């Protein structure tokens, strides 16, 4: 079976020509199958977020290859890379990265603007995504008026609105208490059940010990140090 995502000896160095050059990812080879839930585990600074960015086409590798749905994306022109990112991935960031001045509905709608969709279709998709995270009643509220847990649900709805194949989440429980973390993981489990592939970066045991996780990839200093079933 062809993996949905594969990296081959992928490296990422920030500011490569400067004195403060930092190698965040150092030659990682890994793969993620369709429908799988994979956790990238490791302490802070181990390269989890950088690897997520590489896998999710948010940045290009300094060397090595990233292959998504059988196509090497690391050398794609920016426009096509963006297209792959928009059509294939949905992102839930650690800091949520919502636009504070916008309403819940407008934040969720953001990924749809570049698509050739009618206003009706955009509205339908936003409504569906908000229903998925049970936020329909808060659609017109500004995101700054919401609690942390609600803001994260907005971020999830935004990640789902383009109907992606892969959901990428960076430290999704970092700002949640234990109860909300459980609720979130149940939601992730439901999404996985619906066929979504999950790639989650975390160092929270509550996440990587959850039954939804199929495989754990452990990182240390930008290198893959252990890989195995949950």
């Amino acid at each position, binding site marked *: 079976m062809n993996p949905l995502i594969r990296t081959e000896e992928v490296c990422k160095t*920030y500011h490569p020509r400067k004195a403060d050059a930092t190698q965040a990812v150092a030659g990682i080879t890994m793969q993620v199958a369709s429908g799988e839930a994979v956790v990238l585990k490791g302490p802070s600074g181990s390269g989890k977020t*950088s690897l997520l*960015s590489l896998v999710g086409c*948010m*940045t*290009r590798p300094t060397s090595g290859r990233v292959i998504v749905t059988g196509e090497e994306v690391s050398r794609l022109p*920016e*426009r096509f890379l*963006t*297209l792959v*990112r*928009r*059509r294939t991935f949905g*992102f839930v*960031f650690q800091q949520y*990265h*919502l*636009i504070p*001045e*916008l309403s819940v509905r*407008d934040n969720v709608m*953001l*990924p749809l*603007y*570049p*698509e*050739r*969709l*009618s*206003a009706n279709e*955009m509205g339908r998709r936003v409504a569906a995504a908000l229903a998925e995270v049970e936020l329909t009643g808060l659609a017109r509220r500004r995101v700054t008026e919401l609690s942390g847990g609600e803001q994260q649900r907005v971020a999830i709805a*935004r990640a789902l609105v*383009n109907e992606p194949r892969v959901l990428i989440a960076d430290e999704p429980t970092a700002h949640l208490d234990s109860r909300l973390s459980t609720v979130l993981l149940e939601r992730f489990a439901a999404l996985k059940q619906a066929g979504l592939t999950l790639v989650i970066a975390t160092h929270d045991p509550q996440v990587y010990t959850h039954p939804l996780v199929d495989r754990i990839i452990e990182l240390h200093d930008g290198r893959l140090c252990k890989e195995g079933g949950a």
Partner: protein
Amino acid sequence: MRYLKILEYALASLLRRPGKTCAILVVYTLMIVVLASVLFLTQALKTEATTMLAGGPQLVVQKTMAGRHELIPVSAVEKLVEIPGVKAVKPRVWGYYYDALTGTNYTLQGFDTLANELSLLNGRLPREEGECAIGAGVARSRLIHLQDELILIDYDNIGRIFTVTGVFVSAADLLTQDLVVMPEGPLRQFFGMPDSLATDLAVEVYNPNEVDTIANKIKRSLPDSRPITQSELLRTYHAVFDWRGGMMLALFSSALMAFCILAWDKATGLSAGERREIGILKAVGWDTGDVLLLKLWEGLALSLLAFLSGCLIAFILVFWWGTPVLGGILRGWSVLFPALRPTPFIDFYQLGTLAFLTIIPYVASTVIPAWRAAVTDPDEVMRAS
């Protein structure tokens, strides 16, 4: 569809930052008001001058003594009509009158010398002694209307009463605003001017292309005269108004400088919030082109709104309110000239140039920093914020 959706987002984005948007809009609009007012007024005055001169004689001959304008003997007419190419020569009687009552300057013209194309707003032209027709500016400054009396002090310091038989209207306001017209005889009496002298001579020629040649012949025939062609007058008017307009633009260059500083400030960087927003948009799937389109719409919407508002306000200031400040400087008559409302005229080429010089730099200053942020990987933009 995609363009419209991003335009909608851009407009909403401007409304989300009302303080910043309003501040830029006010500065930008003020700058356009100043620049457009000068351009409108300069162009309107030049157009008025052109219209005014188009109705005047092709050639005017004045007598000079010691380089100063003198009254010319009417007998010179006979010499001039003999010059080949000259169709007709008409002595003109006119002069200036300072009205101490209102502190304004009037132009008094003999009826025979007045160009026939002037039309009356209402009433009729004066026919006999004790009657006059006046310009709208005179009527306003003296608060008089048709059939009212106008009292003027003659050369002998005697007050003379004239009945207003008509009020002028003309496409060339510059020509009629300060005008008082009466029959030639009474005007000579008023100025104490002998019948043998005239203010100047209006010369009509058969072939307009030969005006310069005929002017040279007149100069040879009457060495103490100064022939002035219509095109010379027009060039002088245009040069004077252009010079004054240029001076004003130079004075207002501080406004332009302030705008440049604003644009430079925008061009040299984005706020952390703007960088973060671009990072988010890229992360959720907008490509560089989409972000640039968003910033282009934002810049265009703001600059077009400011430009159109500025031009509209300038138009109202110049053509509706009569340019309370700029008018005096550009016309150069200061308080001695009755209030002027220039005939609306817009040079779209100049307006286009103004639009080019203000909208393009502003849009560029909006798009360039956004482009610098948008070409960076969204990952880096978001880490930076």
